[in-house]
Every structure is written in structure tokens, then in C-alpha cells.
């Protein structure tokens, strides 16, 4: 596949405007931590609509998109809610208002759909225990295609399956990437790589864009290779108030404030007006945060360094020719080699 590595670095505004299309299937790549908050907020600001949203585990990301009216259908396993009987959140409100269709899976079932999609398979076997539950018996908009049971051709046993998922666009936040799109992520791996790789388009935000040689020296951290990536956006604090390992912890105070506000429609609207619509981009959001609470709040959650022990990617040599100019295996110089070629009649004019 042709891969244009030029012009992938852009703003969140441009990336969302170019690659996130109304009515398509959208997947949040992150799982529980370090979610792509700025991309989510930008989708709301651009008033994108009609998504079938995939999320392994909804934190504030899913509720913000549902609050903004961007989501028609939701495929998930878990959505965090403001606690208690008076709690709830945007997802509960939308279900009760009849404006949201949904499909519930278990964590493994959902992830299996992504893994099938990422490898190009049409379905994946999942654990049969779910057949004893209402996850299996109660179907949402997918109907019969939520789960299907087949017979294993080898053992003759009944096997539960889920269909592959190949969402149109994955939005994802990672620690670092290069300008070509090689995206590096570490820590809690979750289903992050699968969510990105099963998708047709991938737009990546990162805490920092690094030089390509940083990627080359640590390829085991690369979860998405450049050729799959459509856009790279550098957004420091791009996951705030969720956390990014090695960069910052969860902002528990701010997150708690969101959870409180999100318990009611009015509270959620006020919060969205202030922190999503009221800030034109992440820089404006951080300015507003600093004005209101002080930068000390952010400084107190900055990560201290605890570096991974470097892995030795070195080899015995990086040239076929040794320090005396002799080829390592044949023990001759380039000149001697060319002479031999000529003597043995190996060269064509």
C-alpha cells in the first residue's frame, strides 16, 4: 500500500476535520488510562455526528461524546458512571431518552472482535461461559450477529464466536511518536494496539514528537507502524485529566469534579460549556485550568523519571568490512574481490 509519510504532522483541528467523518464507525483506542481527551473534545467542537462508537471501557471520553450528541450507537463492555442511585451519566441519560442504541460485551468478547479485525479474520472464538448469561440472550442493534455459535471441526464442541470489527477511524493518544507516525506506547497495554490496528484510519496524538532515531533505538515500544498512521498530532497534556505513564498521573480532583457534574444533564452541560466548547484547543484549556486552579496543581502530578533498563540492540559489527578493509567472511579487500571477479570472468560489460 502506498504510504505518504509527508504532511502527517498537523493540528488536532485538521486531523479531526480531515479523517473523522459523520456517521462512520469511530473507535477510542485507549483503555481506561491516557485516553485521547483532546481528540474527543475536538470532535465535540466540530459537532461531528452519527457515530457508532467503540470503546473497550468508557471513562470520561465516552460520556463527553454522548453528552455532545455525537453518538447514535455504542459498542462497549463498561462505562464508568457517577456513583450511587442519583449518579448515572450521559450514557444512562441517552439510554433512558431513547437516543442511544447499544451492544454490551465482556472485555474479552469486545477485544476478540478487534483482534479478529486486526488480523483480517472474519470472526474470533470466545469463551463459552457467556452463553449462560444475558449478554448472550439479550441482543441490541446487532441482533443475531452479536454472537453466533458454531461447531468446532476438530473437537465437535459448540464454540461461541464474535464477528470481527474494522472501525473506520481510531483516535488514540500515546506517549511519543515520530513525524512519520511510528507510535510508541508502554505501561498498561490493554487493547490499545488491537484497537488501532483493526481500524481503517488511525489518527495519533502524543505527548511528544521525537526524532526517528529514538524510535529505532526502542522499536519494542512501537505499537503502530508508520505506514498505518494518517495523522500525528503533538498535544502535551493531551490526555488530561486521565494519566499518561511517564508523563503525569490522573488529576483526581479535576476528574472527580467531572464525575460530580456529569451526574446531571445540567451539570454536564455546564462542564462541557466551560471545558470543551469554552476552550478552542488544548492550549486554551490549559490556560483556563491554570487561571482557575493554578499551575501547581499540574506540577504536583508530573511523573518523576523511572527509566526502563535499556535493551541492547547492538550487534557484533555494522559493516561487512573489517577495520583493515577486509571482507569479514572471505578475508579479502574490495580491490582483491574485484580482481577475482575479473579473473574468473564474472563481470559483464
Amino acid at each position: 500500500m502506498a504510504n505518504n509519510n509527508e504532511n502527517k504532522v498537523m493540528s488536532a483541528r485538521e486531523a479531526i476535520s480531515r479523517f473523522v467523518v459523520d456517521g462512520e464507525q469511530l473507535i477510542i483506542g485507549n483503555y481506561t488510562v491516557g485516553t485521547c481527551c483532546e481528540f474527543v473534545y475536538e470532535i465535540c467542537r466540530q459537532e461531528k455526528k452519527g457515530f457508532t462508537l467503540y470503546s473497550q471501557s468508557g471513562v470520561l471520553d465516552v460520556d463527553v461524546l454522548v453528552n455532545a450528541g455525537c453518538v447514535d450507537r455504542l459498542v462497549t463492555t463498561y462505562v464508568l458512571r457517577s456513583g450511587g442511585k442519583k449518579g448515572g451519566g450521559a450514557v444512562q441519560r441517552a439510554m433512558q431518552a431513547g437516543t442511544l442504541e447499544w451492544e454490551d460485551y465482556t472485555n474479552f468478547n469486545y477485544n476478540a472482535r478487534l483482534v479478529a479485525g486486526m488480523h483480517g479474520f472474519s470472526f474470533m472464538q470466545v469463551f463459552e461461559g457467556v452463553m449462560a448469561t444475558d449478554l448472550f440472550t439479550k441482543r441490541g442493534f446487532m441482533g443475531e450477529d452479536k454472537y453466533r455459535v458454531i461447531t468446532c471441526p476438530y473437537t465437535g464442541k459448540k464454540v461461541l464466536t464474535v464477528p470481527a470489527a474494522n472501525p473506520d477511524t481510531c483516535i488514540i493518544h500515546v506517549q511519543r511518536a515520530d513525524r512519520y507516525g511510528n507510535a510508541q506506547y508502554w505501561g498498561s497495554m490493554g487493547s490499545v494496539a488491537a484497537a488501532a490496528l483493526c481500524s481503517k484510519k488511525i489518527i495519533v496524538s502524543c505527548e511528544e514528537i521525537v526524532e526517528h532515531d529514538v524510535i529505532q533505538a526502542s522499536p519494542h515500544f512501537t505499537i503502530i507502524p508508520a505506514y498505518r498512521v494518517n495523522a500525528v498530532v503533538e498535544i502535551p497534556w493531551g490526555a488530561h485529566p486521565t494519566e499518561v505513564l511517564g508523563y503525569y498521573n490522573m488529576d483526581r480532583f479535576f476528574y472527580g469534579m467531572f464525575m460530580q457534574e456529569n451526574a446531571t444533564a445540567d451539570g454536564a452541560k455546564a462542564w462541557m460549556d466551560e471545558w470543551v466548547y469554552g476552550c478552542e484547543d488544548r492550549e486554551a484549556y490549559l490556560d483556563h485550568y491554570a487561571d482557575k486552579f493554578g499551575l501547581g496543581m499540574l506540577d504536583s502530578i508530573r511523573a518523576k523519571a523511572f527509566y526502563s533498563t535499556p535493551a541492547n540492540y547492538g550487534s557484533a559489527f555494522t559493516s561487512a568490512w573489517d577495520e583493515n578493509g577486509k571482507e569479514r567472511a572471505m578475508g579479502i579487500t574490495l580491490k582483491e574481490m574485484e580482481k577475482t571477479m575479473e579473473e574468473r570472468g564474472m563481470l559483464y560489460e
Partner: protein
Amino acid sequence: MSKGYTLNELLVITCAKEINDYENVILGVGLPTAAGALAKALYAPHASLMMESGIIDFEPLVSLNHIADAHSCRGFSCATDLFSAFTMTYRGFVDVCFLGVAQIDKYGNLNTTCIGDYYNPTLRLPGSGGAADFISYAGHTVLTMLGGEFVEKLDYLTSPGHLTGGNSRNDSGLFPQDSGPSMLLTTKGVFRFDAETKELYLAQIHPGITVDDVRNDVPWDLKVSPELSETERPTDREIDFVRQFAPTISMGREVATELTIDSVVKRAQQRGKM
């Protein structure tokens, strides 16, 4: 007489005693992670603590925010993915799993999906997450219920317990033999499952609680163990550990949140903000 303890401290410490040394343990968020840290520090130093996010063999230093909280420890032994965390459970490598409960029936089947009609819920709860997968294939599962309820019939069966009791779980052919929930911890006592009928019975009662207090919460005629005992009182060493490790859990969410907000507002106001 040892020092006074909070209800949360009693629960964490009681929960921790369900972990044996050398076990592979899947921890859900909240109380179970504090229990896991306590068990590893005091009773089960060789246990491997694991979470579904693929964090394997971690030693938490502070209380966790959720099941993907790599910030709570200083590195960990293996970073695998969610898919593999579940398939290792399916293959039988997980000895015990800890799960939170919203609704439970007499055979330990769980609902964490909704209250009321699934398609038009009165309350929408978080959903299965990994619960249905783990309770299906972990060696056994320990349940904790803090704000939930006992019901005759679940509004939605999210996670399979002992199904309709007796041998029904084993006979279904869907689960490893003799797996399923082994214990339920609530704010009032400890429940276990009858070996034959697989029905919940009250095994231990927390200090200061009566059997009637417990019965009032249960809509069926609750069986009570003839050897009913009082939940063991925490030692100073256990209490000190929980307070050091997870002071906000010792304090309880409500008071801890109130004090946190006060502290942040005060700090901002001192700097002329807010």
C-alpha cells in the same frame, strides 16, 4: 485491646485473608487492590498480583485508581495485553479473582449491568467489563458487595455464579469443574456457598451486627451456619498497613472526597484563585 478500626479497614483485611501464598490473583479495583497489597505484604509474599489490563506481578505502593493503574507501582514484571490476560485465565492459570457486585442472587449469579429493564433501564450500571470472563474461568472468585443488594431474581445476569444451584454449573459443560464464587463479603458479614446446594449462607458476622440485621437485607430465608462466628478483629499491624498504604480507603470514599475538595479549594484560594 488493639486500636480501633473503620469498617473499610475490616473489609480490606478480611478480603486479604482469601489470598494464599504462591497464588496467581486477579484484582478488581477499589477494595480488592488494597486487599491484594496487604496480603502480599503480610500473608502471601509470593502471590502474583495481576490485572486484566495486562499488568502482571505488580507491587502497588499507593492505592490504585483503576485496573490499569501502572502509576501505583514502580514497574512490574510483565506487560502483556488484555487478550492474553483473559486467555491465561481461560487456560486455568488464575487461582483466584476478586470482583465487585451490584446485585446478587442466592446462587451467586451477578448483575453489574442495569437496574430495571435492560432496554429501558432505571439505572444503567457500568456493565460486565471483565467480570463475566473471570468468574467463568478463575479457579474460584471472591465477591465484595458494598452498596449492592440481594435479590430473588436478577434484573440482568451479567456474570455466571452457580447458575440454578446444585451441580448446574458443573453440568452446563461451560466452565471448569468446581469453579465459581467461593465467598461474598458485605458490610455486614461473610457468606459462603453450601457444598451441595451451592446456596449462599452466612458464615461470619461482623462485630456489632446481628443475624437479623443481615436477614433484613435478604429477600429469601437465609441459611445461617451452625458454626457462625464473628469476623476476626484486625490486628494493629494490619490496621497500620492499610492506613499507610491506602489512607483514603481507611477513611472511606465520602469523607475522603469531601476533605480532598476542601484541601484543593483552600490551596487555590490561598493563591488568589477560584
